[in-house]
Structure formats: C-alpha cells, structure tokens
C-alpha cells in the first residue's frame, strides 16, 4: 500500500513561458503583511466609495447573490514565483462597479487588517478583475485572503489584496502599502515592473 503525499507533484517546467525573472511553483506560498484577520461573515461587507464620497455597500449575503464568474488564471508574485492555471470563483468588478457613477482614475483597495494597494480603475474593468471567495472549488482559506480577496492576475500578486473590505475611488493614483516602500506603482509582471526607479 503506497503512502500518498497529498499535494506533492512532479515539476513540469518545459515549454512554459513565464514573465521575466519568474519561476514556476505548484505550491501556494503565503505572504502577509500582518496577522491573518478572522472576519465573521455576519460582519463582513464590501464597500465602494466614490471620489465624491458616495458609498455602495454589499453584505455577504448580498455579495453572494450577485452573478459569479470562474476565472482560471496564471498568477505572478513579485518574490519570483508564478503559479499557472489557478481557478477561482467570484464577482467581476464590472458587476460591482456597474452602477457606480464615477470619473475616478484610480482605486485604493482597503482590507481588514489595514493593508492597502493601488490599482488604476481601468485595470479593474473589462473582465480583468474580480472579488473572489472560492479557490480551487473550496471556500477561500483565511491565510489566502478569505472570506474574499481582490484578484487582478495581470498585475503582480501583491495587487490582489487579501481580506478586501472595499475600494476607495480616487482622482489620482497614490501609493499603497508596498508601493510606498519602493515597489512599483503599477506592477506589470511581463514588463518586470517590480520596483520604482528612485
């Protein structure tokens, strides 16, 4: 009787094109800027605040009632690992931003625990970003950002903020938590935009 090591796989690296400076992982490393917040679903909410101060808020039940999508995407961490074909379920930001009146340029993602990260609003629209609550068919685990996280897979993964609580829409882009320590304001992995020029 063979003992199976759950989660162990052979590494396949041939014929895969990764962004510059990245290597493949089949694991899902955890990187957090603080302790894992445990947010009860009764208290959870997601709020979009416009540059004019208007708020649109969803409770957990209201959020779950929205139409969902199941993106299967590659993710790229600035610490140099990439993970291919990750599967998620959640709500497209096209849905959440759909009836929000705004002419903002940028958004600051805010999170339970205090983390922030900035993303241009155009990068959150057009089927490129989601608020996800399910990973690999199971509820998103707290260490990976559950109950819900932002997913913006075309940017480095620090932009996909864990434990998201809302988006603040802004007239001008401003640096978030890691950006203010020298990480790139935009973070395109294919252009290897890891750091800001000093």
């Amino acid at each position, binding site marked *: 009787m*063979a*003992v*199976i*090591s*759950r*989660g*162990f*796989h*052979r*590494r396949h*690296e041939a014929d895969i094109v990764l962004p510059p400076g990245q*290597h493949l*992982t*089949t*694991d*899902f*490393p*955890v*990187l*957090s*800027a*603080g*302790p*894992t917040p445990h947010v009860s679903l009764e208290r959870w909410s997601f709020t979009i605040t416009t540059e004019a101060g208007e708020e649109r808020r969803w409770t957990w039940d209201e959020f779950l009632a929205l139409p969902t999508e199941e993106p299967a995407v590659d993710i790229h961490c*600035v*610490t*140099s*690992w990439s993970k291919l074909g990750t599967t998620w379920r959640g709500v497209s930001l096209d849905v959440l931003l759909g009836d929000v009146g705004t002419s903002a340029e940028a958004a600051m993602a805010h999170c339970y*625990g*205090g983390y922030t990260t900035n993303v241009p609003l155009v990068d959150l629209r057009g089927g490129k970003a989601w608020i996800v609550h399910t990973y690999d068919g199971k509820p998103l685990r707290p*260490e990976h950002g559950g109950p819900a996280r932002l997913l913006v897979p075309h940017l480095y993964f*620090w932009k996909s903020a864990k434990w998201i609580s809302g988006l603040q829409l802004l007239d001008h882009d401003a640096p978030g*938590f*890691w950006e*203010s*320590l*020298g*990480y790139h304001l935009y973070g395109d992995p294919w252009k290897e935009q*890891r*750091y*800001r*020029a*000093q």
Partner: protein
Amino acid sequence: MGSWYPATLVALRQETWTARTLRFDVPGWPGHLPGQHVDVRLTAEDGYVARRSYSLSAPADGETISMTVQLVEDGEVSPYLVEEMELGDQLEVLGPVGGWFVWPPGPAASPDRPGPVLLIGGGWSHAVRGARDADVGGGRSRPGERAGRAFRSNRRMTVDDNTYLDGNALAGPLGAVFAADLTAATGVCAGCGHEEVLAAAPVYGAPMGLVARCNGCDMVLLRYADLPTGQTLEMSGIAALHLPSRA
C-alpha cells in the same frame, strides 16, 4: 539497512524565511544517533515518486523524528516540505541511515566518547532556540536571555502559525541602516503606548519586506524594504525609541 516507515507530519516550526522544521510520528521507529539521516520518499497521486536524504535535526524522541529543511527555490521536494506540506500529511522514511560520523550522547567517558558537542553558527536567535529545544543549555548570555524571553512572551507563536518571524529577524537588515542594534531598543507603540524591545515584535512581510507589529495592538511599528533600487525604512508607528547604553 532499515525499512520504509509511513510518517505523519505532527508539528511544524518556521526557523527562517526559507527553512522550517518538520516533526513526524513514525510508528515503529527504532531510534537514532546524532549524525544519522533518513531517506524520504514522496509519492504523488499519479504515482510519481521522488526520494531525497535529509539529516535528522533533533535527538531521538520515542517514535518521532525531526528534519530541518532549507528551501531550494526551483527544487522539487524542498518547496513541498517547506511551503506545502500540512499537519496530517504523510510521506515515507527509510532509516536511520549512516554510521560513519555519529556522536553518542552522554558525558565524556573515553577518547571514543568525548562528551557533548555544541555547534554554534551565525544568527544566535536560531541557535538559542535550538539549544533550548534540545535541552543542552539555557542561554546564559545577555542576547540569549533576550531571545528566549522574546519567544516565551510572544502570544502568537504557535506551531501552526508560520506567517511571521520574531523581531530578531530585523537585526541584520536594520544593521545596514543603523550603527546600533535596534532590536535591543525599546519601542513605544504610537497606537496603544505598549512598550517592548523590538526583538519581541512579530515581523511579517518577508521576503517582500519586513513589517514589525505591536504585540499589544497589531499596529505597524516599522516597515523596511531592501530593494535593488534602494532601502526604505518607515517608522511612524513608533512614538519613541530607547536605546540601552552599551555596557
């Protein structure tokens, strides 16, 4: 040569950003001597098998063994052991293997039995932890006492929480910025007024940066990033910093 034993992961401890100790229950384990190692066999669900050798990093303790594994980033087995494997997961071990360089425990008895050996490497935080765990010394030096106290006082240091390091991780990086060892300094949290040596603060964010937080209120005390483009230190969460005079 021994035989293959199923082994179940029962405890984890993060040692550095890229190394952790894994403790396994191995029913039927015959025991081992310091210096011996094991072969590890991992079988994927599709039947693929990988086999590696790892040193045993703790004395024999009944039917449990410990291995301390350093991550090799593009490796196949070490990323699984360091980042993926969870409590309750299984692998197989063969051993104990190796008898060429072993060190029998116990007091000096003869030239063949020269007594205990203590290995000391750079980075005393880990050394003190290891020494305490192995029950070979209490950390009598001042830094040792500080490290021991930092670990005992840290309410969040549990085996299944590997998301942060202790404040001693700041010593090397901040040494590049300050002449004094800031980890020995007492910081006053700007949020709640809690006072504590920096070495006792939980440190998150590695390897992107270092984020030291208050043990009292979780607020960010300081943030530091060492990037190819430059170093940035932000300390707005520390209301005051007291550096002890050098003895």
